[in-house]
């Protein structure tokens, strides 16, 4: 019971820390804006300072921290769901293992001090460039993730003016297209790494990566077309704002409500884009080791970290498009009117909480499912996800044409959720919830 209350306290504390992080983001905007432009929200200097603060806080403070912590979380969470304990041998002052978090430092130290081994006959320039090419595009995706709502500069301490500033690096009108463009750039890093290594296994991994990622680009894009139709914008801040409360009585216009099929398609494709199990054929450590087999030290670390950054970024995008982004829906309008700063901070905190839930979900799925066979990967993409996404686009378009207020679409979405829930809960060959945890689940599923 001690652990129960302790864990509850830790989780509640985490929520407060995340809200605090949101507040820090807006305070940083205020401070740097003041430093650069003297405080008036409309001046170029203030906007520049705010943007600089956002870049630093979001990339370094949020994404890199989250990615580093995810490397530990992967070990600890997988241990928890496999009834193990997980990494706990590093103890601060010989007593406190702190949930394995000191392993971040140990890993970094190990990666940085390892010998740099290079294969003979590699294409040196491309070999050195590949980890950067794998990492940079993924990292660039962070730019459009709308973590906090836009609020008037005057409600941020140290600033004045009516210009709206958001806890987001950039909000281009082409937000979703930006995501597709940069997500498809990531394939160059893996393909070139595999090709430049002068290693057959690495080449196989690179080829697998490029074919898999290019295939899933298609359904990745089509999964979001439904949302573009429904919300009539490509900008992520606009999409989040469109998920307003009160569509069907108390139910908000959440993306996952309007587009459950789109959510499944996009989430699956995004999973394939991260190249992690069950889509980890490019890596395939038990068969070909993968496109980074010839990389050592921090060059491998960069490839490894880019997977985790990708998890963070995709969680952010799914949160923004499907889970209502920074909307927290309780006393929202009242708070936005009376305490806009705290509205923004709590909104950013809510966004981060949703993001953490999605990251958890991605790790759980990674440890739940075995690797697909290669034909299954391509079948899942071309024969299941793509037709489903296309049908979803047509249904969404028709529903929005018939009823622009989105109510019809919401009812269709609710019906889809109910069908999925009933099929999931229905007793099948696997038996009841008690009986199916055993051998039946170890059986691989074929046919996809």
């Amino acid at each position, binding site marked *: *019971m*001690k*652990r*129960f209350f302790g*864990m*509850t306290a830790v989780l509640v504390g985490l929520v407060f820390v995340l809200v605090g992080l949101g507040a820090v983001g807006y305070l940083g905007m205020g401070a740097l804006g003041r430093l650069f432009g003297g405080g008036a929200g409309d001046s170029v200097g203030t906007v520049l300072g705010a943007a600089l603060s956002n870049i630093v806080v979001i990339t370094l403070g949020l994404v890199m921290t989250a990615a580093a912590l995810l490397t530990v979380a992967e070990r600890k*969470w997988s241990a*928890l*769901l*496999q*009834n*193990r*304990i997980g990494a706990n041998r590093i103890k601060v002052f010989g007593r406190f293992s702190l949930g394995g978090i000191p392993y971040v430092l140990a890993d970094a130290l190990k990666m940085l001090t390892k010998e740099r081994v290079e294969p003979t006959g590699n294409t040196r320039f491309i070999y050195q460039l590949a980890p950067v090419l794998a990492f940079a595009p993924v990292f660039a995706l962070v730019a459009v993730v709308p973590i906090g709502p836009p609020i008037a500069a005057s409600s941020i301490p140290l600033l004045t003016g009516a210009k709206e500033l958001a806890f987001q690096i950039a909000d281009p009108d082409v937000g979703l297209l930006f995501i597709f463009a940069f997500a498809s750039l990531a394939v160059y890093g893996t393909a070139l790494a595999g090709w430049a290594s002068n290693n057959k296994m690495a080449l196989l991994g690179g080829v697998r990566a490029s074919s898999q990622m290019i295939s899933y680009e298609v359904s990745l894009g089509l999964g979001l077309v439904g949302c573009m139709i429904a919300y009539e914008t490509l900008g992520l801040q606009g999409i989040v704002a469109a998920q307003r409360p009160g569509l069907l009585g108390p139910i908000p216009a959440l993306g996952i409500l309007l587009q459950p099929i789109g959510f*499944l398609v996009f989430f699956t494709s995004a999973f394939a884009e991260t190249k992690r199990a069950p889509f980890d054929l490019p890596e395939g450590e038990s068969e070909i080791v993968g496109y980074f087999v010839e990389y050592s030290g921090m060059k491998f670390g960069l490839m490894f970290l880019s997977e985790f950054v990708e998890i963070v970024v995709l969680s952010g995008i799914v949160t923004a498009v499907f889970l209502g982004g920074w909307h927290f829906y309780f006393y929202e309008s009242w708070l936005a009117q009376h305490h806009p700063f705290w509205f923004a901070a709590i909104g950013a905190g809510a966004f981060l909480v949703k993001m953490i839930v999605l990251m958890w*979900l991605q790790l*759980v*799925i990674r*440890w*739940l*499912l075995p690797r697909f*066979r290669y034909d299954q990967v391509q079948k*899942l993409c071309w024969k*299941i996800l793509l037709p489903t996404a296309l049908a979803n686009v047509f249904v969404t378009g028709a529903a929005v044409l018939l009823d622009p207020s989105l109510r019809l679409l919401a009812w269709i979405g609710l019906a889809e959720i109910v069908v*999925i829930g009933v*099929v*999931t809960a*229905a007793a*099948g*060959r*696997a038996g009841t*919830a008690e009986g*199916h*945890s055993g051998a039946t*689940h170890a*059986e*691989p*599923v*074929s*046919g*996809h």
Partner: protein
Amino acid sequence: MPYKLQPAATGLRESMYFPEVLRGIGTVARHFFRNLFFSRDKNPDILARPRDGFGTSDNVTIQYPEERQPYPPGYRGLHRLVPRADGKPRCVACYMCATICPAQCIYIEAGEYEDDPIEKYPVKFVIDELRCIVCGFCVEACPKDAIRMDTGEHTPPSYERSEQIWDEKRLLRGPPVSYHYDPWLRRASTLSPEDVEKARAIARPFPSMATDEASQTPGFSVRALAAEAKARGEGGAA
């Protein structure tokens, strides 16, 4: 496809794949949250731990160096030379153990007590634990119950081979044992008369069979042994 790899999915739900994944997430998440929110039971008897109830973790790990399961009583651990009540070894340097040892890892040099014309004692008693095959024949062969393997310890690891050569100074340890027939209980010794009386009081009749009775017990049960260990105050708390 040269041969059928897997059984085909039966039923609509398994063909749709996603519902099965959702159910899998449910199963795994149940484990996750139970292990996250509830502390691990540290009872060394894993089978006696509560399972599948609310408020229990599914974790069965024993954190080895910090937590240990008790060994069964028949466990043949590190040797010891059994002391008498006055601290000298029970061993009379008869060479039985050295003779029967199939690994030839016991070396004995016999000597005589100046004040005792009857019994010998080992001036040197050396066991090479690296050669020992832990068969327990020495314990069986000993006519005086002077060598035992009841310490319940492994041979501790070392960085030097020489540290694995155990001499009589390191081997002579553990609780003293006395039997009714022991000669030094019946004649004058270095012990005071009161101590001799005490030693006589705890003396036991010599066992008719093998020295370690518990190792002969049929129906060995981890659960019973763990309960005994707990009663003795061992292994329960980490």
